[in-house]
C-alpha cells in the first residue's frame, strides 16, 4: 500500500501498489555518507540561486514588513511607534469592511470553485486520455492568461450600457443592471467571474488524485450495492482528502489575497462593497504612503490566513491509506 502524502502525485492513472519510496542517497547505495565534498558543493551551487532569490525577494521583505509594522515610515526617517499602527488598523472602519468583504468573497469563491473543479474532474475521470487532455487544457487556459486581461474582458461583459450580460438578460425582459455599480451585485459579480475563470489547475490536480484511486475499490462498492452518490461520498471524497486539503488551503490563501480584479474593475467600489484587504493595503502603502500602517495590515492578513490554514489542516488533515 502506498501512502498518498502529496496531491502532486502521478497524473497518469497508475493505481498499482508501489514499493516504499527511497531517498536519492539510498538509491545510489551509499546513504548520505556517500555524498562527496564535490557533489555537496554542486548541490549547494544548484540550490544557492533559488535560495538567494527567495531571501532577497521574499524572506527579507517579510522580516522587514514585520519591523515596519511597528514604525512610522516616512521617506526620510523611521520612528518606533509600538502598537500604534495596529491600533489604527483596528480602528479603521474600512479595513473592517474589507475584512468582511474578503471573508465572504473567499468563502463563496473557494467553495464554488472547488465544487466546480471536483464536478469537472469527476466527469472527466471515465473519459479516455485524449478527451481528458482536451478538456483539462481548455479549463486550464484561463490560468495562463493575465488576470488583468481577464478582468478587462469581464469589465466589458458587465458594462451596464453595452455589456453582454445585460444584452443576455434583456432577452428575458430584465432591465439593464449596473452589475459593478450596485452594492448588492458588485461583490457577487466578482465572485462569479472568479469561479467561472478559476479552477483550471485544481481540475488537473483532482483528476490526478481520482486517477490514483484503485479501480478495485469502486468495483467492491458496486458489488456491495452502493449507488454512485454513495460511492462519491464514502469512497472518493475520503480518498482524495489530501488533495482537497491542499486545494482548500492554497485556494483560501490565494483568494484571501484577491487584488487584480478589484483594482481593474471596481477600485473597491461601489461604496466600498468590493474593497478587499489587499486592496486596502495597496491604498495605504501606495496612495497614502503609510508603509507602517500597510505593514500592520499585512501582518493582520498573515495571521488570519495562518489561523485559517491551521483550522483547515485540523479539519481535513488526516492521512489516507489505500
Amino acid at each position, binding site marked *: 500500500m502506498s501512502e498518498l502524502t502529496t496531491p502532486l502525485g502521478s497524473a497518469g492513472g497508475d493505481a498499482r501498489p508501489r514499493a516504499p519510496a527511497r531517498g536519492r542517497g539510498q538509491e545510489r547505495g551509499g546513504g548520505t555518507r556517500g555524498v562527496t565534498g564535490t557533489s555537496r558543493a554542486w548541490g549547494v551551487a544548484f540550490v544557492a540561486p533559488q535560495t538567494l532569490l527567495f531571501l532577497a525577494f521574499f524572506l527579507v521583505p517579510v522580516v522587514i514588513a514585520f519591523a515596519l509594522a511597528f514604525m512610522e515610515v516616512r521617506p526620510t526617517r523611521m520612528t518606533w511607534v509600538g502598537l500604534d499602527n495596529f491600533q489604527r488598523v483596528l480602528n479603521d472602519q474600512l479595513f473592517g469592511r474589507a475584512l468582511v468583504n474578503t471573508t465572504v468573497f473567499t468563502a463563496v469563491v473557494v467553495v464554488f470553485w472547488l465544487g466546480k473543479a471536483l464536478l469537472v474532474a469527476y466527469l472527466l475521470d471515465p473519459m479516455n486520455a485524449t478527451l481528458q487532455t482536451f478538456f483539462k487544457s481548455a479549463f486550464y487556459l484561463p490560468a495562463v492568461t493575465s488576470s488583468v486581461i481577464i478582468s478587462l474582458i469581464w469589465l466589458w461583459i458587465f458594462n451596464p450600457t453595452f455589456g453582454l450580460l445585460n444584452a443576455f438578460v434583456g432577452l428575458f425582459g430584465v432591465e439593464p443592471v449596473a452589475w459593478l455599480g450596485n*452594492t448588492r451585485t458588485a461583490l457577487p459579480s466578482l465572485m462569479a467571474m472568479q469561479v467561472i475563470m478559476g479552477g483550471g489547475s485544481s481540475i488537473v490536480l483532482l483528476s490526478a488524485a481520482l486517477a490514483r484511486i484503485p479501480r478495485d475499490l469502486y468495483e467492491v462498492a458496486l458489488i456491495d450495492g452502493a449507488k454512485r452518490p454513495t460511492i462519491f461520498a464514502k469512497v472518493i471524497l475520503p480518498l482524495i482528502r489530501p488533495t482537497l486539503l491542499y486545494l482548500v488551503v492554497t485556494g483560501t490563501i490565494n483568494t484571501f489575497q484577491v487584488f487584480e480584479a478589484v483594482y481593474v474593475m471596481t477600485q473597491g*467600489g461601489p461604496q466600498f462593497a468590493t474593497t478587499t484587504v489587499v486592496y486596502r493595503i495597496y491604498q495605504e502603502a*501606495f496612495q497614502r504612503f503609510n508603509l507602517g500602517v500597510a505593514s500592520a495590515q499585512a501582518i493582520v492578513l498573515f495571521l488570519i490566513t495562518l489561523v485559517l490554514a491551521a483550522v483547515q489542516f485540523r479539519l481535513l488533515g488526516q492521512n489516507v491509506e489505500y
Partner: protein
Amino acid sequence: MRRSPLHVLVALLALSPVAAAQPQIELTWWINPWRIVTPDMPEGASPTGEEYARYMSERFMELHPNVTVRYELVPNAGFGEKVTTAIFAGNPPDVLKDLDWNPDWAREGLLEPIDTYLTDEDREDFLPYALAKGLVDGQHYIWPWNNSNNGMGSTLLLNTALFEEAGVEIPALPDRAWTIDEFLAAAEKLTMDRDGDGTTDVYAITFAARDVENMLSWLMRFGAKLMNDEGTEFVLNSEEGVRALQFIVDLVYEHGYAPRGGEALDVYGTIENLHNGRAAIGYGGIYEIGRIDRYLKEGRMANPIDVVIAPFPHDPAVGPIAYETSGGFLVFKQQDDYKREMAMEFARFLTNTENIQMLESLLYITARRSANAQLDFANVADYTEDVSTEVQVYQSAIDHGVPFFGPSDLDISAAIEHFTAAMEAALSRSKTPQQALDDFVREANRAVFGR
C-alpha cells in the same frame, strides 16, 4: 543640414575647454507620455508620447554636452506607485512631471525649492495660480508648464450632428455660455427615442460616479464648495451641494436625460458614450477633440463625430465656474550643487517661453502668458484646420476657473474615495443626496483632518 567631420571637430575643439571645466553629470527625468509633435517629426506622423521626452533631452544635451539626460517614460497608470516606491527606496528621479503632486514631499524635504531660480520675469510671466500650485510653507516647488488639463471639469463637448438632429441651437459665441434652464431645455430635446420603441437611443449627457472632476464641477453649479475658504473643513453637504446632487439624480431618474448605471462608470464611460453617439454632450476641452481624431486613426472609433466646446451651464445667481488646474516639473533634492543647478536649468529649459509652446500641438494652453500670446493653434494637426473659435471658448471658460480641491498645500487624497462612494450612493439611489453628502463630509473630515 549635414555636418562634415571638420565641422564636428571644430565644434568639439571649441567646446572642449568648457566641457573640461565642468563635471560630467547625469540627470534622470521621469515624465508620463505627452503626445506632443516635435519639430523633427516627419509631417503627418502621429506621436506616440516618447518623441517629446527624447527631443527635449537631446536639445538640452546639445546645449550642455557635459550633461546626460536619461528620460524615462512612465505610463499614467501606476505613475504614482512608481514615484512613491522610488522615493521610499531613496532613488527618485532628478526631475519629475508632477502627475501625482503631493505637497508632503516638499514638507518632508524631498524637493528643491525653486524660488531662488525664478527671475522677476518668470514671476510676472507665469500665471499666478499655476505658480501657486507648488506653494508650500511659503516656497515654490513646481516649474509651471501646462495651464489647465484636458478640459475635464472645465468644459463640455457638444455633438453638433445630434444637436442639429434634435433641433437644438448650439449656445451662442463668443463664449457659448448657457444657463441651467437653457441646458435643461436642450437636454429634453437631445434625449431621443428615434424608432419609438420606448428605449432611449440618445441621452443628453452621462454622469459617472468615478469621474471626480466632472462630478465635482456639476456639484458646484449652485454655489457649493468642497471645502471652506480656510481649507480646514469639508462643507460639500451645504444646501447648494445637496441641491446640485439632487439635480443630477433627477436628470437620471426623473427626466431620463442621462443613462442609469452611472454609479459603475468612470470618465472613460462618459467618453465612450460621446464617441459612440449615445450621449449628445460629453466632457473635456480642446485636447479631447484630438482624442477623437486619434481614436479614429487607431480604429477605436468607427465613425467620426464633429464636436464644439461649451462651458458647463451656469446658474445666473452664481455665474460660470470651471476647474482651475495646472501642471509642471519638480526637482528632487540634490546633494551636489552643480547637479542641482543643472536640474533647475533643465526644468527651466522645459518651461521657457520658446519650449513651453510645444504644448500647442496638444491643444493645451501653457502656464506662461508670453507663450500663450503667440499661440494660434492653426494647423497644429490635420483635424484642426481652424480651432481658434474652440480655443477662444475654452479660454473664456477657464477664465472662470476656481481650484476645486482646496488649498494646494493640503493633501486630500484620502477624501477622494469617500467622494466617489457618495456619488455611487446617490447615482444608485441607495442614499439620498443629503445622506450621501453628509456621509462624505463626515468621513472626509475624519480621514483628512482626523476629526
